[in-house]
């Protein structure tokens, strides 16, 4: 009997030692993952580039860690800048650096849309919370995909054209906005074709057709795709519906307007831009007269000059 007791001792003790080593190994893996995240090599490269173009001092002041632009007012936490580090180093770093480190192009409206006031995702889409490229860019498990050149190409658009949709979240009530040619054209078409004779938009218009004030929020699953060619997306449905309403929704009362493909795409962008986006009033541009110069008045609050060091993660 004493022998049996011994066997408990030996086997259990052996297992306990083995399990302890497994536990140590697992803790080591967890630690490794924490210390060497996927953004770390990117930041190392950035520090080297900084040293090359801006000197040792700047490179030394750069600290490795999660970076974010946090704007509680519009509920934005954009950790994109953990990898896209060169975004506001346009005066020092060259554009030839390539993604993800190259500086943000200095577009004409950038002085009205500072990084510290707008962040990244309000214009580009994507998941600001994420600190991995896949989660941040990917449209998997995320209903607001980053508006990439690839995505735009699928619909015969350029990235700039596709992104105008997001500009119009705030610029919805502009008559015309410089740099938003597609949306501007769509707004003119929308008036010219007298869409609100049948559709209600923001409380005005007919009741013959569905209200489209928040068309961009429409649940794509509630749309009939049985007569739509290609991918089952709200964009495709809308585009094909504008081109040939009777084909997509048989027996619809909506007339065929004989839009050109470009016109239909522009109108689709406009319709998809009508969403329940809640921006505080200072983000909404003041209304412009049609005759006025089409320069956007983006915000009432003066935005502080973008500082090179973005807010660090808490």
């Amino acid at each position: 009997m004493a022998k049996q007791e011994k066997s408990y001792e030996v086997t259990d003790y052996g297992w306990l030692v083995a399990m302890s080593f497994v536990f140590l190994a697992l803790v080591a893996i967890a630690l490794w993952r924490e210390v060497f995240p996927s953004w770390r090599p990117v930041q190392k490269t950035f520090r080297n580039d900084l040293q090359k173009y801006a000197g040792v001092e700047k490179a030394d002041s750069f600290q490795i860690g999660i970076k974010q632009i946090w704007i509680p007012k519009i509920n934005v936490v954009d950790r994109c800048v953990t990898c896209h580090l060169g975004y506001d180093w346009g005066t020092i770093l060259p554009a030839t650096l390539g993604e993800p480190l190259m500086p943000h192009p200095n577009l004409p409206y950038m002085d009205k849309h500072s990084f510290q006031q707008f962040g990244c995702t309000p214009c580009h889409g994507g998941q600001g919370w994420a600190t991995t490229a896949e989660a941040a860019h990917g449209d998997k498990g995320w209903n607001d995909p980053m508006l990439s050149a690839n995505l735009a190409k699928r619909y015969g658009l350029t990235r700039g054209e596709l992104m105008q949709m997001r500009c119009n979240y705030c610029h919805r009530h502009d008559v015309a906005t410089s740099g938003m040619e597609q949306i501007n054209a769509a707004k003119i078409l929308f008036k010219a074709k007298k869409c609100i004779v049948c559709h209600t938009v923001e409380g005005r218009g007919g009741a013959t057709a569905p209200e489209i004030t928040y068309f961009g929020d429409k649940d794509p699953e509630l749309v009939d795709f049985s007569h739509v060619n290609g991918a089952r997306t709200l964009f495709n449905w809308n585009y094909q519906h504008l081109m040939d309403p009777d084909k997509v929704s048989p027996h619809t009362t909506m007339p065929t307007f004989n839009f050109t493909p470009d016109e239909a795409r522009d109108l689709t962008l406009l319709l998809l831009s009508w969403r329940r986006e809640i921006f505080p009033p200072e983000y909404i541009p003041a209304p412009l007269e049609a005759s006025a110069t089409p320069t956007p008045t983006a915000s009432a609050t003066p935005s502080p000059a973008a500082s090179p060091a973005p807010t660090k993660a808490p």
Partner: protein
Amino acid sequence: MRERMAKLWRAVTWTWSPESERESSEAIVRNLWLHWFPAKITRAAMSWNYSMWLGTASASLFLILTITGVMLMFFYVPSTERAYGSIKDLEFAVSFGRILRNQHRWAAEGMVAIVFLHMARVFFTGAYRGQRAANWVVGVLLLLLTLLLSFTGYLLPWDQLAFWAVTVGTNIAREAPLVGGTISFLLLGGNQIDQQTLLRFYVLHVFFLPLLLWILFAYHMWRVRKDGGLAAVEPIRAERTMRPKEMPATKSYSMFGLTPGTSVQVMSSTDLEEQDLVTSSPNLTRRVMLVFLAVQNATLLAAILFNAPLEEAANAAVTPNPAKAPWYFVWLQELVASTTVRIGPFTISGGFLGGILLPGFLLMVLAVWPWLDRSPKNAEGRWFAKTRRNQNAVFAAAIVAIVILIIIGVFLRGPYWKIYLPGTPRPEMPKVF
């Protein structure tokens, strides 16, 4: 220096090996954390084959869940505006946040499974008879509490998965006769899932349910000791009392002289014999440590390998297709769906039959089964005793049916609640882009 190093080495490789039985039992009895263990334990109860240590594994999971849960409480914000964001922060920005949440999630799912398996073990070994019946009922309550804890935790991430799983769950509760509407209203804190629901589920999840579970767990363990340990000792006890004893060398005496036969003392060898027992310290304590470590490793490995699911933020306007209950309730959803009858334009909801009546009946039978069981005493404490064949078969059939329904619900049900066999393409759900 050398002496100091040797001393340090001894301190690091400290071991405990009691030199006498007295020292061993005092290590148990005089220790606050260990005194609920017996000083000695039967070899039968130590066997891997008998209990598979599923109860210890459940308790280990609950301890892991309590610790990881308390740590998560430092980051989680139970508000509809910030809950989802705080989970995203845990996932992407908090140090070890992702692994913490993953482990909490997988330990929770594991606990539901292991507690259920523990109950199956107790049933198949007939360990709920006689005095142990009361503890069986406590066990059923503990299973219910585990399910409720898991269900209340399901809502907290406030994503689409959470929102719609809880919608399915509370809509089933609404089907209960008379009190259904009230229960649903009480749980939701209103007529729909909103901030009130999140707060109620949170308070239940982090305070009331765990507290209740800890109290009942303590009682469960106390009862195990008071009922004479695991039922595995019963066959041995029976053997010890049945075994014909050698006539003692001494004679038996009555008050007035010699009597024929043996005295009461000799016959009633109720106590287990020395060779049936081992000291709890270090045999049991080491084993408990081993089981805990194994469970910890398993959940940690799962946390490293697999990310806990997190879908888009909760949106009451967009229903995912299909909307599924958590896996341990999906068999009920399956029953509800298959007992829903459509006659022409009329639909009779299966919510009452499949969601309330059948599970209620199963639970009731489960709770009173020890008093309905007529199997003989010697079936106690053995796996698959022949005299219990019929009831074991019925119980196994019920488990298999539930598992099949769960597999169908989790793996085969696709959009529009249709069955898609593995390998067949599922329709792509429409998106904005």
